[in-house]
C-alpha cells in the first residue's frame, strides 16, 4: 500500500514540473548526486525554482534537504549533477562562490559573533574599505535602505548577543541582502521563534518576494509551508519525491509523501487515573551567576498519572527548571517536594540521589548531556546508572550484563542499528533519543522530566516516542515535559503551563487551551487582551 502511494506520487511529481517550465527559473538543480561513504544522501535530485517565488522544501530528518542546500551554498560539492542559476551553469565550490552567484543562506544556528554590534556582524568579511569607519558609513546607508524597503528594522549599534532571537535572525537576513543575495535559503527558520515572531518573519519574506527575491524555505512544519509558499518540493530518503503547487495540495498529502505512508497524528488520549501530587514546586527561584532570576518564584504541581507540558520559547527558564528538578542545579529559593523528599537551599540533592528517588530525566540536549557521543551505545546505555549493583556484581563492570542490557533495550525500543558496539555519535538523532528514553523509562520511574522529547527526530520515531510517554503516564508516572513544539504540547499534555522570562504566565487544563492563545502567552502578549488567571499569575509573580 505504502509503496503504491510513493510510486504514484513520483509520477505526479514529475508531471507537476511541466507548468513551471515556461517561467524564468532562478535555480535549477539537475541530477544532483552526493554520497557520504556508503550513504547516498542525494540521488538524482532535480529541483526547479521559479524566480520571485517562495519555494518550500519538506522532508524528514535525513531526507537529504540539508545536504542539497549545502551543495547549493557550496559547503559540499556534488559528486555528479549540474547547478544553474538564472539559466547559467555555475560551479559552486565554496560559500564565496555561492555569494558571488547571488545566493544567501540563513542557517538554523546563527553564524553571528555575539559580542559584535549588529553593524559589525553584517560587515564582517564584506568590508568595503580597509578602514572600518569608512565601511561602516557605506554599510549604514545601504542597510537603512534595505530596512525601509523590507521592514527589516534592527538597531545597528546594538550588541548582537543581547537581541531577541527574532531580531538576530533579521541580522542574518540583512547579512545576506547586504551581500546582494537575490536567492535566500532559510533552514528551519521558525524553530526558535515565537508565533508572533514567525508572523513578522513571514511579512518580511513576502516583502522580499515582492521585490523579486527568490526564497527557498526548508522546514518540517507543514502549517508554515501551507501559509507562505507558492510551490513545495518533497524529499524522502535522498530523492525528490514530488513537486506541488501549494494551492493544489494539502497538509495531509504532504505528510503522506514525506513519510511514505499515512500518518495518524492525533493519538491524544486523555489521562484516566490521576493520582495525588507527586511533584510539588513552591515559590521556586533559580538565579544566574549574576543573580538574575532565570526561574522566578514559580509554583506548580505534577500529579501521578498525568503529563504536564511546559510551553514557551526556549530560553525562558525551562532548561534551568529541568536542571533544578534533577539536582543538576541547586535551588536558590523556595522548595520542591518529590516523592516526599523536600529539596530546599539547605537540603540540596544531586542527580545521583534523584535516581535513587526514582526520578528519570531525558535531557533537552542529548549530545551535550544525554549521552557521551564518543561512547559505544552499550556505554551510553548505563550513563547515570553506572553504579547499579546489577551492572557491578563485584569490583568490575560486568561487560556481559551491560551488553545484554543494551541488546534488550535496543530491541524493546526498536533502536537501529541494533548494535551495542556502535558509537553513540554514529546513530541518528531519533535512535539516540530512543536509546536515552529506553534507558530512563526502563527504570520504571515514578517521575519523568523530559525536555524536547522529539527535537531532531523523524516523524516515524516521533509517534513511537509519544506512545511510550503516554504508556508510561498510564502506569502512574508523573511526567513533566518541556517542549518548544506547540503541537507536541497540545497532543500529549493533560495540563499546560506557559513560561515566559522565568515566570509561569498560564497554567490550564488542555481542554481550555488552543494553539493561538498559547502562542500569544508564550510571547507574553496575552494579558492585554484577556485578564484571565494567566495574567494574574504574571502579576503575582512580578510583585515578589
Amino acid at each position: 500500500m505504502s509503496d503504491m502511494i510513493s510510486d504514484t506520487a513520483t509520477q505526479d511529481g514529475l508531471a507537476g514540473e511541466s507548468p513551471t517550465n515556461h517561467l524564468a527559473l532562478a535555480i535549477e538543480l539537475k541530477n544532483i548526486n552526493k554520497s557520504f561513504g556508503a550513504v547516498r544522501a542525494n540521488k538524482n535530485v532535480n529541483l526547479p525554482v521559479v524566480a520571485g517565488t517562495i519555494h518550500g522544501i519538506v522532508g524528514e530528518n535525513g531526507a537529504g534537504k540539508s545536504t542539497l542546500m549545502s551543495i547549493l551554498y557550496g559547503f559540499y560539492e556534488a559528486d555528479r549533477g549540474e547547478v544553474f542559476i538564472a539559466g547559467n551553469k555555475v560551479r559552486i565550490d565554496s560559500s564565496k562562490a555561492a555569494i558571488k552567484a547571488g545566493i544567501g543562506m540563513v542557517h538554523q544556528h546563527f553564524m553571528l559573533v555575539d559580542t559584535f554590534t549588529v553593524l559589525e556582524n553584517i560587515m564582517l568579511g564584506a568590508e568595503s574599505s580597509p578602514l572600518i569607519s569608512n565601511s561602516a558609513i557605506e554599510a549604514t546607508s545601504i542597510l537603512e535602505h534595505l530596512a525601509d524597503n523590507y521592514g527589516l528594522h534592527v538597531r545597528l549599534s546594538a550588541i548582537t548577543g543581547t537581541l531577541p532571537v527574532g531580531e538576530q535572525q533579521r541580522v542574518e537576513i540583512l547579512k545576506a541582502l547586504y551581500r546582494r543575495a537575490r536567492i535566500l535559503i532559510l533552514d528551519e527558520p521558525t524553530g526558535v521563534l515565537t508565533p508572533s515572531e514567525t508572523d513578522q518573519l513571514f511579512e518580511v519574506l513576502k516583502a522580499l518576494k515582492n521585490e523579486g527575491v527568490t526564497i527557498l524555505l526548508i522546514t518540517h512544519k507543514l502549517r508554515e509551508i501551507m501559509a507562505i509558499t507558492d510551490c513545495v518540493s518533497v524529499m524522502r530518503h535522498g530523492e525528490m519525491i514530488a513537486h506541488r503547487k501549494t494551492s493544489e495540495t494539502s497538509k495531509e498529502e504532504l505528510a503522506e509523501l514525506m513519510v511514505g505512508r499515512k500518518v495518524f497524528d492525533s493519538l491524544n488520549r486523555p489521562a484516566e487515573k490521576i493520582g495525588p501530587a507527586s511533584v510539588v514546586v513552591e515559590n521556586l527561584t533559580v538565579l544566574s551567576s549574576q543573580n538574575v532570576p532565570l526561574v522566578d518564584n514559580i509554583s506548580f504541581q505534577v500529579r501521578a498519572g498525568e503529563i504536564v507540558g511546559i510551553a514557551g520559547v526556549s530560553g525562558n527558564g525551562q532548561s534551568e527548571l529541568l536542571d533544578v528538578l534533577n539536582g543538576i542545579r541547586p535551588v536558590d529559593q523556595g522548595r520542591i517536594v518529590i516523592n516526599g523528599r523536600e529539596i530546599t537551599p539547605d537540603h540540596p540533592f544531586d542527580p545521583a540521589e534523584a535516581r535513587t528517588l526514582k526520578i528519570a530525566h531525558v535531557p533537552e540536549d542529548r549530545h551535550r548531556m544525554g549521552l557521551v557521543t564518543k561512547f559505544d551505545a552499550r556505554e551510553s546505555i548505563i550513563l547515570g546508572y553506572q553504579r547499579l549493583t546489577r551492572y557491578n556484581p563485584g569490583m568490575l563492570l560486568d561487560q556481559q550484563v551491560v551488553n545484554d542490557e543494551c541488546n534488550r533495550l535496543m530491541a524493546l525500543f526498536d533502536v537501529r542499528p541494533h548494535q551495542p558496539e556502535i558509537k553513540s555519535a554514529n546513530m541518528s538523532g531519533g535512535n539516540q533519543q530512543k536509546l536515552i528514553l529506553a534507558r530512563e523509562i526502563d527504570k520504571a520511574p515514578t517521575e519523568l522530566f523530559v525536555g524536547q522529547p522529539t527535537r531532531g527526530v523523524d516523524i516515524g520515531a516521533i509517534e513511537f516516542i509519544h506512545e511510550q510517554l503516554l504508556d508510561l503516564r498510564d502506569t502512574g508516572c508523573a511526567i513533566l515535559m518541556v517542549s518548544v513544539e506547540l503541537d507536541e504540547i497540545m497532543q500529549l499534555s493533560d495540563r499546560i503551563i506557559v513560561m515566559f522570562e522565568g515566570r509561569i504566565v498560564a497554567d490550564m487544563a488542555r481542554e481550555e487551551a488552543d494553539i493561538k492563545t498559547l502562542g500569544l502567552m508564550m510571547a507574553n502578549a496575552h494579558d492585554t487582551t484577556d485578564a484571565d488567571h494567566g495574567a494574574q499569575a504574571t502579576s503575582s509573580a512580578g510583585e515578589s
Partner: protein
Amino acid sequence: MNDTVKPLPRWIDVGLIPIINVSIALLVSGLVILAVGENPIEATKVMITGAFGYDEGVGYTLYYATNFVFTGLAVAIAFHAGLFNIGGEGQAYIGGLGVGLAMLLLDASMPAVLLVPIAILSAALFGGLYAAVPAYLQAYRGSHIVITTIMFNFIASAIMVYLMVNVLINPGQQSPESREFSDAAQLPFMHEIFGWFGVTIAHSPLNLSIVWALICCVLVWVFIWRTKWGYEIRTVGFNETAASYAGIKPARVIMLSMCISGGLAGFVGLNEILGVQHRLLLNFTAGYGFTGIAVSLMGRNHPFGIVLASVLFGALYQGGAELAFEIPTITREMVVAIQGFVILFSGALAYMITPWMTWLYNRLSRSAVTPVEAEG
C-alpha cells in the same frame, strides 16, 4: 567537507602515524648528524646495536623503559579525565622521597617481604598526595592544572635539595646522599634473579620493578575500561556536562584520577631508589616525568601503546648514550637533541600529519571503492 571524511582506521592511527613520526624525527636527526660531518647511517647502526645488540644494552633499554611506563601511565590516566598532568617529574621525585624515607626508617627492622610492599605503598602515597594538591586547586578553586603541576615540579626539586643537603645527608661526606639501605631494602636485579635459576645474563640496572610496571599496565587497563570508576573518569574526560547529568561529581573524579596519576609517577622512585641506587639522592628523575608525556601521547594513552613507546624511548636513551661514547664528534648534547626531535615529532607534534594522512587515506580509499560501488 566534515561529514564526507572517513576517520582513519585504527592501524593507521596508532600504528603507521607513530612510525612515520619517529621516521621524520630520525630523518631530521640524520641531517644534523650529516651537518657535523658524520655518517647518519653509521650513527643509526651504533644506536640500534647499543640499544638491542647485546645483553647489557637490552638491560639498560628495559630499565629506562620501566620508568617511562610509570610516567606514561601517569599521564594517560589524567588524560582520560581530560587533565594534562605535566607534574610527573615532581611526583616521581616525591614518590622516590617516600620510598627513601620509609626504607631509612624501617630497613633495619623488617624483612624484604614486608619492605617491598611498604616501598610500593609509600611511593604511591607520596606521589599521589603530591598530585592531590594541584588536583584540589583545579577541582575546587579552578586553578589550571597545567600551571600548578609545572610549578610543583620546582617545589619538589627545592624540597629535595633542602632535605638532602640539610637533613638526610649521610654525615661525613661531601655529596648530598643518604646512607645506603640494608640488603633487605633492595629490589633484586634481573641478572640476580636469572642467576637464581642458573641463567647468566650481563649486569644492568634492570630490576624487579619492570614486573611491577607490567602489572600496573594491566591494572590501569582494567581500571579505565572495566570499572565504574574508570567509566566515570572517561565520562568526565569526554563530556563534563553529561557527567554532571549522570550524577558524577567532576571534582571528585579530578581528585581520584590525579591521585592515581601521581601514585603511578611515584613508582619511578621504586625503580630508581629501591631498585638501582639503594640510597636517596638528588636528580634521580632525570626528566623521565617529562618524557612520559611524549610516551603517553605516542602510545595513544593506552597501556599497550605505552609499553611500546616506552621501549622506543628506552632504546633512544640507551642507544644515545652508546652513540656519544662510540662517535666522539657526536656529543652528549647532540644525543639529547636527537631525543628531543623524537619527543617533538611524536609528542608535541603527534597529530601534525594526521590531517594529511586523513586526506591521503580518503583519496586512496575513494579511488579504490568507487568502481566497486558503481558496479553494485
